[in-house]
């Protein structure tokens, strides 16, 4: 388990003091695929580098299996880094080593014997499906193949944690899919905890079970991936999701003056009940459906509906209460959320 407690990082540059990370708290369980999403400059690269101390935080602690890595001396840091693999957006392979020599690098660093290195390299190149590229140099590989070598290298020294720094950002969509599938498999088969940072919501949607949204050095929202997709609460998260269910709401003019637009979210249990029609039957209100969308995240479905409700204000309030009782999440659609 990895626990990040009250982590802060600030430094001084020519424009003065910069708070790159502000009081970050995260809890990552063993076996999680934990996504941290944010725009560039949000602090996510700094945050992920605090976990293996490539960056020194200014305050706070990072506990890996209850051991505070901020208290380790240099020798101990090298040791703990050997069990934390890391992959990068630009792959960072050594250009003058072939694939097998690249995978062997962390093993040489950890003083494995020649025989052990050979066996382990073969095993890992097999795992990532590149046995036949053993003697190819990085310049002879495609982006996806390079990332596969990097994954093999990151896991070579028996790491049980894998940090992914925008690992798919330089890849095309289909290669991204195959790399994500590989990461998922590694997570499942070996129980390796994966922490990834990205600016691509699709990456989160595809493989993460938990997610945190970071903006300007702060975690603004965190939860399971399903929660985040179905009921995003923070403006930054909503912007990331570029909600399809809201399309068409910008140009809509209310039929009755003073009528509000409401965004309804139906989660699994409420998604299959005819809640709206029952509401209209029971109460004296008009409902106008403006937009809607049904999605699913990792096999769980959820739906969104934007409606205009008109009627006596007391009855409208009752109607909304009825929806809430039926586990429909109701919020007033703010003007800034409307899209074309």
């Amino acid at each position, binding site marked *: 388990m990895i626990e990040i407690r009250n982590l802060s990082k600030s430094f001084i540059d020519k424009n003065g003091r910069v708070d790159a990370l502000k009081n970050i708290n995260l809890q990552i369980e063993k076996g999680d695929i934990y996504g941290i999403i944010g725009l560039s400059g949000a602090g996510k690269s700094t945050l992920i580098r605090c976990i*293996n101390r*490539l960056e020194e935080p200014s305050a706070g602690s990072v506990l890996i299996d209850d051991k505070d890595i901020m208290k380790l001396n240099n020798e101990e*840091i*090298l*040791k*703990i*880094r*050997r069990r*934390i*693999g*890391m992959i*990068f957006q*630009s792959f*960072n*392979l*050594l*250009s*003058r*080593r*072939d694939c097998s020599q690249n995978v062997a*690098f*962390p093993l*040489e*660093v*950890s003083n494995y014997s020649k025989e052990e290195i050979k066996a382990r390299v073969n095993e890992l190149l097999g795992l990532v499906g590149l046995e036949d590229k053993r003697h190819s*140099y*990085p*310049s002879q590989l495609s982006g996806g193949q390079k990332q596969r070598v*990097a994954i093999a*290298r*990151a896991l070579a*020294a028996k790491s049980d944690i894998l*940090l992914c720094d925008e690992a798919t950002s330089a890849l095309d969509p289909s290669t991204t899919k195959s790399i994500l599938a590989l990461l998922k498999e590694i997570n499942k088969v070996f129980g390796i905890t994966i922490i990834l940072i990205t600016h691509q919501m699709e990456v989160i949607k595809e493989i993460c079970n938990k997610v945190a949204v970071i903006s300007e050095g702060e975690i603004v929202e965190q939860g399971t991936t399903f929660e985040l997709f179905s009921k995003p609460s923070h403006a930054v998260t909503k912007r990331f999701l570029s909600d399809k269910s809201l399309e068409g709401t910008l140009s809509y003019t209310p039929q009755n003056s003073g009528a509000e637009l409401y965004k309804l979210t139906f989660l699994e249990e409420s998604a299959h009940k005819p809640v709206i029609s029952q509401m209209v039957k029971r109460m004296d209100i008009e409902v106008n459906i403006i937009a809607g969308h049904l999605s699913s995240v990792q096999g769980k479905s959820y739906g969104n509906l934007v409606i205009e409700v008109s009627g006596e204000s007391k009855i409208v309030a009752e109607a909304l209460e009825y929806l809430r009782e039926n586990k429909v999440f109701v919020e007033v659609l703010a003007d800034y959320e409307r899209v074309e």
Partner: protein
Amino acid sequence: MKELNSILLKLLELMPQPLAETLYMVTAATIFSVLLGTPLGIVTAISEEHHMWPHKNLNRVLNLLINITRSLPFIILMIAVFPLSKLLVGRRIGTTAAIVPLTIAAIPFVARLVENSVKELAWGIIEAALSMGANTRQIIFKVILPEALPSIVSGITMTIINLIGYSAMAGAIGGGGLGDLAIRFGYQGFQEDVLFGTVVVLLLIVQLVQYLGDKIYKRLIK
């Protein structure tokens, strides 16, 4: 035709000794300056503020040292290091003694080239090695040196060509060499054929060094 033959004969007679002296001085100075300048260049690069082994004061001292040595005109440096030559090779003048100032002039040159080669490496590969728990020594020998090697080889090629140029001045302190031959016979003795012959030979040597350097560089790049 007869005249050309006699010129060639004269060159063949005059050339071997100065040629050997030039090759001897340049080879020795190249070996020593690469051996001493490479570590200096690496330490200068990695001791910079945001590199892997930041040591601000050491970095300042090394930079100062390199700049001072590089700004000295070679002809003056050659005389200034007399005491050192005496200490190291037992003589102030002569071909072997000339290797000392040549080496000293080339060390900062090599150091700067190596420093640039190291700084040109993508930080990502060093960061990746750090993330795998490699220590400073392992990163220098397993990452920095091998990855920078092609660029260092280009630098060494440049160093050799520079040293051939500097070695022409070695005649001033009795070092001999092709430069000395050209000045004594060609310039002071009005034998323009010798001057011309020396120029051609120097040109050929430089071309050969550049050709071999490029060839090795290409072979090293993967």
